[in-house]
């Protein structure tokens, strides 16, 4: 079920689309941007994007308000996400990126918790079972993009000695 996306109040606030010179103000602004990007990508099940796409996406371009975040500022937001562990660059030129609205370690934790709860330690699961199996349907493990779960599994196994 796709929820209609609820834009945060900042999205309708014109100064949101200008990188603030005041350091404290900027901190708040960037935090708001980061959470917006993550929730947007999560809802639209978008795990990767190019910078070009981002510029034109309604995420950074509020047509109604007639404001768009300039590309230099988008770069600043993406860098913030990378520092927080939610983003990885897919190429050297920084033209496309992977967006992880749950960090790998967070996934790892969730998998481990599910595995423990369902009492299936020391058994082997395939990646597919884990992400798409019936047992996991209502759990928070869904929806987990495949490559995320690969990362997640690695994390989980290193953390809690799950067999690979």
């Amino acid at each position: 079920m796709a929820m209609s996306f609820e834009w945060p109040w900042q999205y309708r606030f014109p100064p949101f689309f200008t990188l603030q010179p005041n350091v404290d103000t900027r901190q708040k602004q960037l935090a708001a941007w980061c959470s917006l990007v993550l929730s947007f990508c999560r809802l639209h099940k978008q795990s990767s994007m190019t910078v070009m796409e981002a510029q034109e996406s309604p995420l950074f371009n509020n047509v109604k308000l007639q404001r768009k975040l300039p590309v230099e500022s988008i770069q600043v937001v993406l860098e913030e996400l990378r520092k927080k562990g939610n983003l990885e660059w897919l190429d050297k030129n920084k033209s496309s990126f992977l967006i992880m609205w749950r960090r790998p370690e967070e996934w790892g934790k969730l998998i481990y918790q599910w595995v423990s709860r369902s009492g299936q330690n020391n058994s082997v699961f395939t990646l597919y079972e884990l992400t798409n199996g019936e047992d996991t349907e209502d759990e928070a493990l869904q929806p987990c993009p495949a490559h995320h779960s690969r990362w997640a599994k690695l994390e989980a196994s290193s953390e809690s000695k799950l067999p690979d």
Partner: protein
Amino acid sequence: MQLKDRIKFDAGTLLLSTHRLIWRDQKNHECCMAILLSQIVFIEEQAAGIGKSAKIVVHLHPPPSNKEPGPFQSSKNSYIKLSFKEHGQIEFYRRLSEEMTQRRWENMPVSQSLQTNRGPQPGRIRAVGIVGIERKLEEKRKETDKNISEAFEDLSKLMVKAKEMVELSKSIANKIKDKQGDITEDETIRFKSYLLSMGIANPVTRETYGSGTQYHMQLAKQLAGILQGPLEERGGIMSLTEVYCLVNRARGMELLSPEDLVNACKMLEALKLPLRLRVFDSGVMVIELQSHKEEEMVASALETVSEKGSLTSEEFAKLVGMSVLLAKERLLLAEKMGHLCRDDSVEGLRFYPNLFMTQS
């Protein structure tokens, strides 16, 4: 002219020098007379004819009152005739004309022995008539020129000395700067005060006193007096350019240079005057009353902006009745303090209340 009226001197030798025409009796060398070339107005030739010898007519100025005694006390005629019985008239005329043209007697002082009762010092031009007046004026002009050159000679010497002095004081000031530890506080202060009294800015104190010279200190005090009223009228703050215009308009003459104004203003706070110079981050300089608290004005600015939702500098300036420059500075200060945030787009720069901080 009747023959008998002529006064004749015969058989003599005519000599021409740079200054005089001299006639000497051939037989009696003691008999000798001279006429100064400067007495001659002009000369003309009279060619020889049958029974007549070639002559040169020499027309003369009227004799000056201090004329040396000559063969005759006075004469009806204003000219003399030189009669060349044998030969030499052509050559002599040529030479005499040359001397008349060159007027070498003007440049060379006549020797002392001939001018015993003349009184004036050697070199003094004896002059009569318009030509004489002109010559006197020329002489005076040359004298003046000479005096001026001599006077400036002294001045350029003084300037050379002054330059040396400035170099010396600079080098001493630098030495002080370098050896700050070695020289005692007291000596340094004394030396600095000497420099200040000489009107030379000490680089060491420039930061603290703003190249404080006596002039700037006095000027600062003067400014404090002039600006008190206008500042109060304008809400306690004025941009430095407004101050510059105001002060110079009041002075009328002896206008202040921008540099002098800035240097004087830099001293306002140090001299504990009721005004101060303030430089905003953008580089804009203002003068504000000590009692004026720009930070407090920011609170009222926030109110104004909140009321209207958002404002540009121009809109704000108009509302509050300030210059746009100062309005912008106030809004920027509010942003710096975190009360406002900005929206920078193609539509321009607008300021909003900082909801990032106030709203969750």
